[in-house]
């Protein structure tokens, strides 16, 4: 395997790890009350919502 191949593998690996970390974080937020709309509009529902309001 030559140098460009190794460099590409490293880049893809880093992106993959970052993606998995993001997905794990999102899953944790959803557990904490985020609506999981996957289009965060800054409503901060996941952080602010009082769980007693939830049905």
């Amino acid at each position, binding site marked *: 395997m030559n140098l460009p*191949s190794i460099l*590409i593998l490293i880049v893809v690996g880093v*992106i993959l790890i970052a993606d998995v970390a993001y997905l794990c974080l999102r899953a944790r937020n959803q557990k904490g009350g985020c609506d999981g709309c996957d289009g965060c509009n*800054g409503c901060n529902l996941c952080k*602010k919502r009082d769980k007693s309001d939830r049905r």
Partner: protein
Amino acid sequence: MNANEKRKTLKEVKVGESAVIQSVGGSGSGRQHLLDMGVIPGTEVTLVKLAPMGDPMELRIYDYELTIRLADAENIGVSEPYIKKEEKDSSAFRAVRAHPGLGEGGKYHEKGTEPLPKDELLTFALAGNQNCGKTTLFNQLTGANCHVGNFPGVTVDRKSGSIKDHPEAEVTDLPGIYSLSPYSDEELVSRRFILEEKPKGIINIVDATNIERNLYLTLQLMELEVPIVLALNMMDEVKGNGGSVDVNGMEDMLGIPVVPISAAKNEGVGELVNHALHVASYQEKPAMQDFCGKDDHGGAVHRCMHGIMHLIEDHAAAAGIPVRFAASKLIEGDALVLKALCLSDNEKEMVEHIIVQMEAERGLDRSAAIADARFSFIREICAQTVVRPKESKEHVRSRKIDRVLTGKYTAIPSFIAIMALVFYLTFGVIGEGLKTLLQMGIDALTSVVDGALRSWQVSEVVHSLVIDGIFTGVGTILSFVPIIVVLFFFLSLLEDSGYMARVAFVMDQLLRKIGLSGKSIVPMLIGFGCTVPGVMATRTLSSERDRKMTVLLTPFMSCSAKLPIYGFLAVAFFPKVSWLVMIGMYFIGMAMGILIAFVSKKTVFKGEAVPFIMELPNYRLPGAKNVARLLWEKTKDFLKRAFTVILVATIVIWFLQTFDFRMQMVDSSKSMLATIAGLIAPLFAPLGLGDYRIVTALISGFMAKESVVSTLVVLYGSAELMTAAITPCAAFALLVFCLLYTPCVAAVAAIRKELGTRWMLLTVVGQCVLAWLAAGLVSLVGFLIGLL
């Protein structure tokens, strides 16, 4: 009226006729909601029109349009309108009043009164009626980008943010409510927030174009004894149509600061913030609460209210409920307040005697009497401080548009034409054209990268990973961005313009046949964009039964993430009629939804839909900024998905289909994936979908529906190879299966949050079984006519 004369009901009033309400029958939340909306004895209403199918009816009351069903109208007794006395020009008796200066520096503080400490967080509740511009004001106050719509009840939960340039102040946007009665979830959430979390102040936003009904909530908020500022929104519209409000007079009469603003134009918002900060930091409570006049109809309500207030003073203090609020809610029969007060049987009996005496003296039942007392006070305020605008140009425009869009013979054809146009433009013209352009760009980029990798002589595995995995999988999905964004663009236009509310009005009668109310159409239409906000939008439905049914039906409205599947398979297998197949998918989804609704109406969800009481807002031109923001969010959202969940899924699938369990690079038929999916594949064999590649694609679709296409492309190599591998009939069965099987993980999470784990599991398993049966039916029919 002659006592022997048969009293008319609102149902008997003819279109265009006016009548005066004499009695409001019915019971429970529906009746209370009507009273809160201003449907009280003595109020004049005009029947504007009936929905195309004859039910519900559109009424004009207090300068706004309200829709109710004929069954509810039958319970409302009316008489001929009074011959109006010549109204005095309200400006004639408006003396020039000095500004009371409430909420302003130092005027009302005795020497030595200290504000709250500087480091104390000033929390505000932003409260107001539905569709009066709360979220627009919230966005202006906080700089947030929350979605704003022109449909009552867009905000279905509360959200908070710091006020711009004032990190010490935090504002919470509450759902739109008409009163503080405990009959809907929104009202309960709002009331609980104010009573239990004790914000330091309330910013009450009022639609100045419809001031009477909006002030009804203001009076109740004032009873909560929390510092309050009144924001008179849409003052630009009032002034533009020749109206005005004597702000000084209103401030004087209400005893709270009043600030005219235009939230959409960001006018007056700075002044509003200053007043809000002032009343909150000095804890300036409303200067008056006693709206029940001593002379109003002999003072029956006044005496009743004050009698009960004295009686329960100690209980209210112990329960931490403001005494006047507690008394008025007790009179209205609020079970939650009654329970919280812990009255003895003797006290309960005394309260009941006082109320019965008031009913006898006032000639109205308890709820109507309280509503009437509030509206009497509001009428007094408006008579002295409000110069009514002439009919606004927005309302004239709405009436003209409604002649067609809710007209008897034109409403349903218009709805079908609008939806057909939306889909035609999305799939056929704008979206498809942009998609082709983008696809060309992606292909060009792929060939450049392919050339570069070859010239660098990268290894075969890395080349395959980048080109066959990432570029093929993610690239295919990216090309669908334009179609999805265009679909969201049209859906947001329909919502922001105010048309969605009309669709609910027009479709109510039809939806009632399958056990739903007209309001259910809105979550379902939103579901065409994405199931997650569709499921969340069901919170605007007041009945648990309607909400459950609508949540379960929303996934049958094919979401935009399934578009790439239809686009890919329809073009590959049915190139000549691809558009027909795509639209057919939408109809099959809707038909299946109707079928499920019929079955559940007869079994799980027996009963009738709740009363359809809804305000029809004026049509408004959607703000370019609002639409642009929504489109950018959707594009960003889609790109984020493409480069996160879909990228990960693509790489994982590429890995599983390139290597075997000994980590040797092999042909995909001997790969790990072939072995794993081969275990499940027999389940799909009867449908003609027993290929491990299809099964893998379906499994990946649970993460995100778009993954189905990227997985198919990665596994088959190209659309041509796929068409050679499966028959058109099997492809159609696959399309039907994809349409109907379990929603993606985000939608499943939303369903779980709304209805709980049991209903979520029912949706996932039920839809998979249904999809299998429907796809099986397609295969069977194909087999019978010799296509398989």
